[in-house]
């Protein structure tokens, strides 16, 4: 039988990755969101070096400069500090907390979800009931209570936000793993004598990566929003350090006289949160594993 020769390489089918990219590209808003995120990250990272102002420099002679006034593109605040540089510095903090909290919550949620989904039984029930219990607390109160007891800093805020936003990932991963758990390729690994760790992280995790990425992206958006809430209420990043949330807090008093103080940080939060949500939606469609079958 000449099967070997006849088994010429299969038709060049597109790899899953390139097909996912093709689907993502069709999603206009997601492309816009991705571009906006890139611009924001670059601006926050490099922008402060390009602007000839100190974010903490108080200049009482130039208080409340309106945008484009006196060389200040976005104007100045009640202490005469340049708003653009403060916005960019605040962006560094908000984006850092957003990404760091996402990393913490995704890692923790993934481990909880994969453990619950793989082992099942009593362990699953215990872990998932714990997830439900944490979900029962209103997140914002939990956040405020924790923030009230802990000295606020970037690291502690990251941990606090991470600790209150891992449940979504845990649920998504648990569901995905549970549906894959009885698949033949997992049984095949078991009949090869694979350890639980091997099956969880080598076999199951790569198949759950799509939903994890989607949930992670949405978590960034939520973490940025959470940071803004907490800082707005005064429990987060403390002045004079700037964050989008405490800049809004600061702007409250001058809403009528200097509206730009509220408009720019507000717009920044909206843009960041919306962008991450758009990208999350785009990824959800692009990485939908069902579309990859056949």
């Amino acid at each position, binding site marked *: *039988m000449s*099967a*070997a020769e006849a*088994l*010429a*390489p*299969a*038709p*060049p*089918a597109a*790899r*899953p990755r390139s097909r996912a990219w093709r689907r993502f590209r069709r999603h206009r808003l997601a492309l816009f969101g991705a571009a906006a995120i890139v611009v924001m990250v670059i601006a926050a990272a490099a922008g402060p070096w390009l602007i000839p102002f100190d974010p903490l420099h108080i200049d009482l002679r130039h208080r409340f400069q309106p945008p484009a006034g006196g060389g200040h593109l976005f104007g100045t605040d009640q202490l005469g500090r340049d708003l653009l540089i403060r916005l960019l510095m605040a962006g560094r903090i908000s984006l850092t907390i957003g990404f760091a909290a996402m990393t913490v919550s995704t890692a923790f949620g993934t481990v909880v979800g994969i453990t619950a989904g793989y082992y099942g039984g009593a362990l699953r029930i215990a872990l998932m009931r714990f997830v439900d219990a944490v979900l029962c607390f209103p997140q914002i109160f939990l956040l405020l209570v924790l923030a009230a007891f802990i000295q606020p800093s970037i690291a502690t805020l990251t941990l606090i936000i991470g600790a209150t936003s891992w449940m979504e990932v845990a649920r998504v991963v648990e569901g995905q793993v549970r549906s894959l758990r009885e*698949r*033949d*390729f997992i*049984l*095949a*690994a*078991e*009949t*090869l*004598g*694979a*350890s*639980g760790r*091997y099956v969880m992280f080598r*076999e199951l995790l*790569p*198949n759950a*990566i799509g939903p994890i990425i989607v949930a992670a992206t949405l978590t960034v958006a939520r973490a940025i929003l959470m940071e803004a809430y907490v800082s707005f209420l005064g429990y987060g990043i403390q002045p004079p350090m700037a964050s989008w949330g405490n800049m809004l807090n600061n702007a409250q008093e001058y809403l009528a006289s200097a509206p730009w103080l509220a408009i720019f940080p507000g717009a920044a939060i909206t843009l960041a949160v919306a962008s991450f949500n758009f990208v999350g939606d785009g990824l959800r469609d692009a990485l939908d594993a069902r579309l*990859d*079958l*056949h």
Partner: protein
Amino acid sequence: MTAGAPLVEVTGLRQWFRVGGGFFGRQDTVRAVEDVSFAIARGEVLGLVGESGSGKSTLGRAVVRMSVPTAGTIRFEGRDITRLGRRALRPIRPRMQFIFQDPFASLNPRMTVRQIVGAPLAIQRPELDPAARAGRVAEALQTVELSPAHLDRYPHEFSGGQRQRIGIARALIMEPRFLVADEPVSALDVSIQAQILNLLIAVRQKLGLTMLFISHDLAVVGHLCDRVAVMYLGRIVEIAPTRALFRCLRHPYSQALFSAAPVADPTLRRPRILLTGDLPSPLAPPSGCAFRSRCRHALPACATAVPPLREAAPGHAVRCIRDDVALGPPG
């Protein structure tokens, strides 16, 4: 252990599953496999035939300990493996392997052929250096007649037959003694089925494999197996050497199954035994002989007790109280 001892010996095996339950549902027990005993000699291929719901796949999976049997014993190479835990099974696993029915579900879609076929080595022999591993992967691919050009491709780039070859390469790379093949060709196109069957016959001879071959197709089982067991509702109803079975079918269910299989030769017309009704629910099988509700030879006595598996001829056992219903070969 003597040379004549069977490689695999199953005694009184039961595999039950609980279904339903939860908050409001009633919990029931499905007796998927009920009191099954057989032995497979070294180098022998035992066929397991039955329709959906017969428990043949459950049995095949239990034998290689993919599940924890409810009762009974499984001996492999003389050792009782019925209750062994994951760790204790680990060194035994490479010697008993499994081939899955669905070549689409049995390969991890996120792994390349190299990773899939190499997985047994990664799991069992992590100390092996990459060159030695690559060599064995290439060798396994050669055994299943796949080109090494395929190594870095993903499963979705292959046809069903090629995927099944990848699954067979994975099962063979550790050089197992015992192979359970669960309907390995039923998901494939007709022209590809013969390729895979021929491949299985070739590797069986090359490696001296002992096999449990599960199929719903009597012709395929007849072609490949030395002995055949017919299952109905969790029990073996007839077991015999292949030729003896096809010469003389003794159980009414085997006869019906045999006569229902369509034959691609219009000049051969067999009398057809049409079964009436459906397979009874495995949750509430009929009392006594489970087949009696559809059996044209049933007697009142069939309802009283499960008939024992009795030897009707040398090596030919049948679970039926009547010995006057044997059916000769077709045509």
